[in-house]
């Protein structure tokens, strides 16, 4: 009985044959819905901050350098690839790419940073449209843009250590 089982098990093993995929020599196409690294399109971004407000990992940061220049910074290292930012973006400036080969020896390699000139609408903070039934509720009281106090436009300010904030964003202003 037991021997029979062993033979059966061995048969299962050999029936399957070798299934090992040849990666990395050949790549298998990723499925169309695959959520890889989000890619930010500077041409489309209006700087509304919807992505920053909806990011569960709180890793899309917004900083106003001055009245006109806003910087959107995607740190990338703690991104959960949930695709919420792409969902809520009113301009579809964020797309979930198919890239998953992002391994690196230098974590800053997966950062993205956009510098944006802001138009007049910049201060309403409500530029993004609702993607889901609850998103319309989210736009209350998150914006924090007293420039001299804290320049992070984010619903809860000061969660980043001061040094990290300085190091994370290096902006040359000419």
């Amino acid at each position, binding site marked *: 009985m037991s021997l029979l089982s062993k033979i059966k*098990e061995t048969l*299962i093993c050999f029936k399957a044959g070798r299934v090992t995929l040849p990666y990395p020599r050949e790549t298998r196409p990723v499925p169309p819905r695959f*959520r890889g690294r989000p890619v930010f399109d500077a041409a489309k971004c209006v700087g509304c901050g919807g992505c920053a407000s909806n990011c569960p990992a709180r890793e899309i940061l917004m900083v106003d350098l001055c009245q006109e220049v806003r910087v959107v910074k995607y740190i990338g290292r703690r991104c959960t690839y949930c695709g919420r930012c792409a969902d809520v973006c009113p301009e579809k400036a964020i797309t979930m790419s198919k890239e998953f080969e992002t391994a690196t020896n230098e974590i800053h390699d997966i950062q993205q940073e956009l510098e944006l000139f802001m138009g007049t609408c910049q201060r309403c903070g409500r530029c993004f449209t609702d993607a889901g039934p*609850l998103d319309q509720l989210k736009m209350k*009281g998150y914006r924090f843009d007293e420039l001299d106090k804290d320049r992070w436009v984010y619903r809860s300010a000061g969660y980043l250590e001061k040094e990290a904030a300085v190091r994370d964003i290096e902006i040359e202003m000419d």
Partner: protein
Amino acid sequence: MPAWKILNRIKERFAAAVERTDVPANNRLFVHVRPGDLREVCRHVFRDMDARYVISIGWDDRPHSGGFVVSHHFSFDKAGVLCCVLVRLPGDHPKVDSVSEIIPGANWAEREFQDLLGICPEGHPWPKRLVLPDGWPEGVHPLRKDVAWNHVPEGYNHDAEHRFEDPPPGCVVVPFGPFHPTLDEPEHFRLYVEGEFVRGCEYRGFMVHRGIEKLGDSVLTYNDIPMAAERICGICGSVHNVAYAQAVEQAAALGVPLRAEYVRTIMLELERLHSHLLWVGLACHIVGFDTLFMQSFRIREPVMWMAEKISGNRKTYALCVIGGVRWEITHDLKDEMRAMLKTLEKEWLAVAGAVKGDRNLQKRTKGIGVTSKELVKEMGLVGPIARAAGVNIDCRRDLPYAAYDKVDFDVVVHEGGDVWSRVLVRVLEVFESIRIIRQCLDRMPDGPLQAKLNGELPVGRLGVSSVEAPRGESHHMVVTGENNRPRRWRVRAPTYQNLQGIPAMIKDQRLADMTISLGSIDPCFSCTDRVETLDIRTGGSQVYTQTELLQMTRQR
């Protein structure tokens, strides 16, 4: 028996004790009682009415009502009702009567709210720290509303080591963890071993406590929480995701489109498929049978690919938002899924046929890690562990959610109570899952994926939801709140209860069987530990009977 009948029965006995009742639906019951009568009411519900203990939850309601609230959750599985017994406590020095003497399974839950909220369970048999790191100073309770989520109190001692109890005489201490090849997750068991036999253990877990619940009620918002929730556990993520969404929807009385319900059901069952296949593989790996480990992972891989096709990720599906789901299942996907299920069923049938007669495997699993029906009742064990011990509970049938009331399936029950029975239960549940998915694919209607929500969610409502995870019942409670986020969100993962049964299971077993016994509950420490640290202890080197053991768990 609908909820109001249960309520009447409680009221018959404790007319004076009941302060307020709330029956929002036929299957939910909230009973507010006077603090002084809490213990008696719980005893009545748990012993006389034979309800299953689910969890005890405390929360800080001071900003709204000026006090704390503690809620004991019970489930009437035959009647299909979730019953919560609540008490309000004062804002300063909150104390509540401990129910651990009556319900041994409440041990951890009470210590947890003692750690996190500073609600003192009076008369608790062993109020040792459970959740917080060892260096955490006394008197700071992170889940209180006046403590920030990133607050690390002054006086935090980085060098503090956990204080373990002394081993019983004649026993050697074998540390098991925090990094052990079979555990995969950091947990620490201190086994008291005499020769090759385990005589007792002390458990120091909650090392994966990441403060998720605190994040949920202070930083994240309603629709962010599902993403955090599914990362409570990498394997049963979708379970937490759905359970949370359902709890909120239930609190807000929000209807979900039928199509979304079906999608949720399919993803939950897909998850059960890959989780069970994974477990069979891991269990084999634990007993050194690597070939079957490899083969079950090979069979499992197409399921992962399918999940990736539907949701864009292999594990964290990012499935739910409040009021619906994010991914649809198109006709092409349906066809692919049917084909996948067909091959899966064929291959798994072959494996099941082979494994059933494998005496070599049976030798390692029969009579190991035995749980009795009594232990299941006392410690509130759930899922395949309960079903393998002959206790016929399954949330999918007892407390139907999503589309489970619209499909046919059998609940697999076994009488053995040992690891082998759990193997069989899980192997057979794979077929039931395949059956459920097939029915869902056939019956899924067209329609919207998300409900339209007008206005804000109501504030201060309570929602509870149970979802049958691959490991057992996963229970979520949400108190809705302001600022687009819940006031309190509490997760009770199945392993939370199942782990409490481990000391009794491994007692007087061989050390070599310890790993498979622990593995057999499919432990998911990350689920369990969202909040803090704990110890269980069953000591002594003489042989205990089941009753004595239960007595002991109650004392400790």
